[in-house]
């Protein structure tokens, strides 16, 4: 990647040239929203105010936003159990997400889906998924529809290092490649699938290596650098739109929280976690923005303050939400058919 030296005005990497100040500020904002959403969710859980399971993506904000910031609402994503970041990256609002998390009617899924199933058709989010690897063929199919409908869109498929060993990975990447579909497979390799390290689960060091098995480009990027992620995405999207087919982008990253609410972190060391905390993608991005003279320190502080406020308001919104009235949920399973009898 090109070395950056903004003050000297030369060799600024493409990311900081291609995207406008507003776009970059928005990216930072979304990363902050993700972080604070996760912290808010954890806090609700710790205070006994939430129910059910959750998978936090603290530390992975750069890949979530770096892989979505260039997408339009008509582009699709499929997400994972660790999906809050993708969802926000794609444009969802924290308040409806919190409402979902608290099981309220105002939630994206009216409290039926919860954290692991947040979807938002309006922003092209085809849903988080409780099934590891479940989104892989769905994204592939969405890309097939895009191609059939001759649309200028792409599908972006998030999945984890753990998911890369599911058969669905293989079948999806092969079909996407054979049919040259406009889909980008984004592996967030946070180095563990629950407790099992990628080293113990996966026969290759870099999952991107596996792209060769599908005759598609595979790149490894620093998943904690939004610029790295976004540049790789831009290239993959351009390729997809040229009709050349899918790509695999592997983002090396780390989740600094446990796998889910009940993780005792026995499979990794404190040192390792602490080391990665030092590579926090958010301050790193903020620092680059300042270094390049794109945002001032004050502007960064504004984003920080605004997002803190937004999250507080979002939690309040959710807590004041409506509990579902459970009359006849069986009638919600099918789509009403016009003219059909009940």
């Amino acid at each position, binding site marked *: 990647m090109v070395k950056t030296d903004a003050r000297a005005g030369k060799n600024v990497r493409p990311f900081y040239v291609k995207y406008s100040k507003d776009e970059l500020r928005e990216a930072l904002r979304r990363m902050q929203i993700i972080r604070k959403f996760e912290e808010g969710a954890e806090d609700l859980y710790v205070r006994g105010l939430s129910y059910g399971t959750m998978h936090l993506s603290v530390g992975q904000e750069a890949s979530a936003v770096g892989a979505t910031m260039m997408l339009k609402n008509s582009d699709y994503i499929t997400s994972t159990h660790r999906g809050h970041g993708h969802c926000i990256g794609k444009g969802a609002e924290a308040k409806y997400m919190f409402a979902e998390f608290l099981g309220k009617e105002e939630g994206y899924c009216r409290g039926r*889906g919860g954290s692991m199933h947040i*979807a938002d058709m309006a922003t092209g989010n085809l849903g988080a998924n409780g099934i590891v690897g479940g989104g892989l*063929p769905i994204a*592939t199919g969405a890309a097939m529809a895009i191609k059939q409908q001759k649309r200028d869109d792409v599908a972006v498929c998030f999945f984890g290092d753990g998911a890369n060993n599911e058969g669905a990975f293989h079948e*999806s990447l092969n079909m996407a490649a054979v049919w040259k579909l406009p889909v980008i497979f984004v592996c967030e390799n946070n180095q563990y699938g629950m407790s099992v390290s990628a080293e113990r689960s996966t026969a290759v060091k870099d999952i991107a290596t596996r792209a060769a098995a599908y005759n598609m480009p595979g790149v490894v990027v620093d998943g904690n650098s939004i610029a790295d992620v976004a540049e790789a995405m831009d290239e993959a999207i351009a390729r997809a739109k040229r009709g050349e087919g899918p790509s695999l982008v592997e983002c090396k990253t780390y989740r600094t929280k446990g796998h889910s609410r009940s993780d005792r972190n026995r499979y990794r060391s404190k040192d390792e976690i602490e080391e990665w905390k030092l590579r926090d993608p958010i301050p790193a991005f903020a620092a680059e923005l300042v270094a390049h003279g794109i945002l001032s320190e004050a502007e960064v502080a504004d984003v920080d303050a605004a997002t803190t406020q937004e999250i507080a308001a979002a939690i309040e919104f959710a807590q004041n939400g409506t509990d579902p009235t459970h009359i006849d949920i069986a009638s919600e399973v099918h*789509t009403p058919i016009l003219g059909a009898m009940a």
Partner: protein
Amino acid sequence: MRELSYAQAIHEGLAQAMEADPRVFIMGEDIGVYGGAFGVTGDLVERFGADRVIDTPISELGGAGVAVGAALAGSRPILEFQFSDFMTLAMEQIVNQAAKIRFMFGGKTSVPVVFRAPTGSGTGAAGQHSQSLEAWFAHVPGLKVVQPSTPADAKGLLLSAIDDPDPVIIFEHKLLYKMKGDVPEAPERTPIGKAVVRRTGKDVTVVATAIMVHRSLEAAELLAAEGIDCEVIDLRTLRPLDTATIIESVKKTTRLACVYEGVKTLGIGTEISAMIAESEAFDYLDAPIMRLGGMETPIPYNPQLEKSAVPQADTIAEGLRKLVRGSF
């Protein structure tokens, strides 16, 4: 009306749906130039092109997921499984995704996908190519499950399935593909969720599915000669059940036999039985409820063994005779 075979009727339904709606496409293994393992898709690839008649790799799970994704993104996919047995590889996408997405997403989207699956025994293909697994799917909220027994319904239920905003699974019986019958040329729909009385009678209600409808009708003819008058209901839709038609019939005949090819334990007739046993028809029953289902074994290869593993006209007649004569 013209006669078509069951396979031809499906072929015609597919063609009409694709002509009427550019969003409709079909995918599956060997459905293109090969024309489908059972010849159903035939020349469709020539008529509609390889972009709408898509040969997939041998990837059932992925194929089902691709169909789900395409449906979410505005297309109307029809996926042919080469044998229903191979749906065992795709249960994840069918059951966790297709069936549940609408509900889990708070009713904010639908998954209009059609899965077609040749099913049943009688072809000498043994245990892994002869199963009748439809009861599994009838156990899953979010799915609709149909099983046509005639060429007209094969076309009519297919067209209804394609119209349907939710996932529909069509189990087509392999031994029926060559069966001929009247089929309207127009794209007439057979409603999902409606059973049909194929033969009226007063002594016993027989609820049957797919090829068992024909075998039950044959048995009914045999028994007619003995003075036993059978009413034969073709269930057609396994989920949701047309309980009204069955209850009404049982109240009239006071006896119920369920005839189906799936393994007896927890096969579809099991639901019919329990539904009646908890319904208003219970008080009308003059005899235990009989189930004639598949034997509790994998389907054997040897043709005699294979035949003996699922109900045949003579064994159905024998069962019904006992039921009506009370020596049950």
